[in-house]
């Protein structure tokens, strides 16, 4: 049974199992917040997915710089994978934050510095994926996207430090300020580790998809070189 699973399928199953473990820590192990009640449990995945998104966008930044420097196709594929996965985690962060904000702040959305900068982050990387789609595939798309990825990363520290730079309603850093009770801290660290593993597995799978897509595109090009009329009808 297991022998028929590829390494990607095994990793995906592992990531799902780990997220279930994290769910156990979030819903069973962690104590209920005295003030916020059960809604506070959103915090664990909300912050973890924000950190995972930062990590993914760091992959985009480094992949972009390495691509511009060395024209390395691997770096570009990693950046592509990182952007998509990072966008997913940013979406999770935004949506979970909104679900938390409704009962706590009384509104889904407020034009707070952190919320606004996170929304801008989402738009920047959605634009990154648009560039990838609209530019000529290959060198041009990779170069243009790398530039967008480098500029876009400027927003990541803005998001991170927005709660200290501006007066915001968003809760400030509580983990590094040692403001969490021990059990909550354990639940948070477990959730974060599982979420980062999930992000890594998603990037690896997406990377594999990018490799296969590139190979298929290269095969179409070489087929077109051999038999132009036949390949023209396949695309």
């Amino acid at each position, binding site marked *: 049974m297991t022998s028929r699973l590829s390494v990607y399928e095994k990793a995906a199953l592992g990531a799902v199992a780990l997220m279930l473990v994290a769910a156990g820590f979030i819903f069973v192990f962690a104590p209920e917040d005295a003030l916020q009640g059960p809604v506070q449990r959103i915090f664990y995945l909300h912050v973890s997915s924000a950190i995972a998104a930062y990590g993914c966008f760091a992959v985009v930044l480094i992949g972009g710089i390495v691509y511009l420097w060395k024209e390395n196709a691997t770096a570009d594929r990693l950046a592509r994978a990182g952007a998509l996965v990072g966008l997913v985690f940013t979406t999770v962060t935004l949506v979970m934050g909104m679900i938390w904000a409704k009962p706590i702040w009384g509104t889904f959305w407020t034009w707070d510095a952190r919320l606004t900068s996170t929304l801008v982050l989402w738009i920047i990387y959605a634009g990154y994926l*648009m*560039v990838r789609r609209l*530019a*000529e595939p290959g060198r*041009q798309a990779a*170069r*243009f996207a790398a530039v967008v990825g*480098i*500029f*876009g990363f400027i927003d990541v520290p803005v998001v991170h430090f927005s709660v200290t730079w501006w007066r915001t309603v968003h809760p400030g850093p509580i983990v590094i300020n040692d403001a969490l009770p021990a059990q909550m801290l354990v639940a948070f660290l477990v959730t974060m580790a599982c979420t980062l593993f999930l992000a890594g597995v998603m990037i690896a799978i997406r990377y594999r998809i990018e490799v296969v897509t590139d190979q298929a595109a290269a095969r179409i090009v070489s087929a077109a070189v051999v038999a132009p009329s036949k390949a023209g009808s396949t695309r």
Partner: protein
Amino acid sequence: MRTVAVALAVARKDLTSEWRTRELVPALAQFIVLALVIANFGFQFDSRTAPAIAPGVLWMTLVFAGLVAFGRAFAAEREQASLEAMLLTPASPAAIFAGKAFAAALLLGLCEAVLLPALALFFNVPLSFDVVSAVLLATVGMAVLGCLFAAMVARVRARELLLPLLTLPLWIPFIVIGGQAVQVAMGAGTGGTGSATSLLIDLDILFVVLTSLVARFVLDD
């Protein structure tokens, strides 16, 4: 020194071509006046609400006029395929880019010379030094970013769609800081404008340096 000479030559070429055709600035000036007319109908304007609304109208109009101006900066080059010819010369791509951005910033500055007096005239808001300096400082950073992405989208499909998507998110810092400075100068909002000036200069330096580093990858493709 050579870089500066090349940049100035490219800027002079763009400004000469604009002077001979006189299409961009007059069209944008009309666009700006039309935007103010629409703002007048969209908002409930009176002497009490004007300080609160006018800064928003200023930045909305400036941003969309800027998108058109920077989009045009590389449109002529693309139509004539003249960018390739410029890149064949020994001039550095960064210098060519700097010249294009400089010319585009000057043209947008001309549009601002229409926008700011028109705003002050129609909406009866004060036009102080703080307003002008915030707008001009924001123009520098907006011009380098706008030209970088305009050079990029000139080579892709659906360029009219992509330019705002890429440019607007990165213009937001200028609008956050400049917007607040203008609000304060027009009598709405709180706080001083002193820190806004230095923050805008910081942002200008950051984006001028970054764009000059990556311009070569966008142009020389």
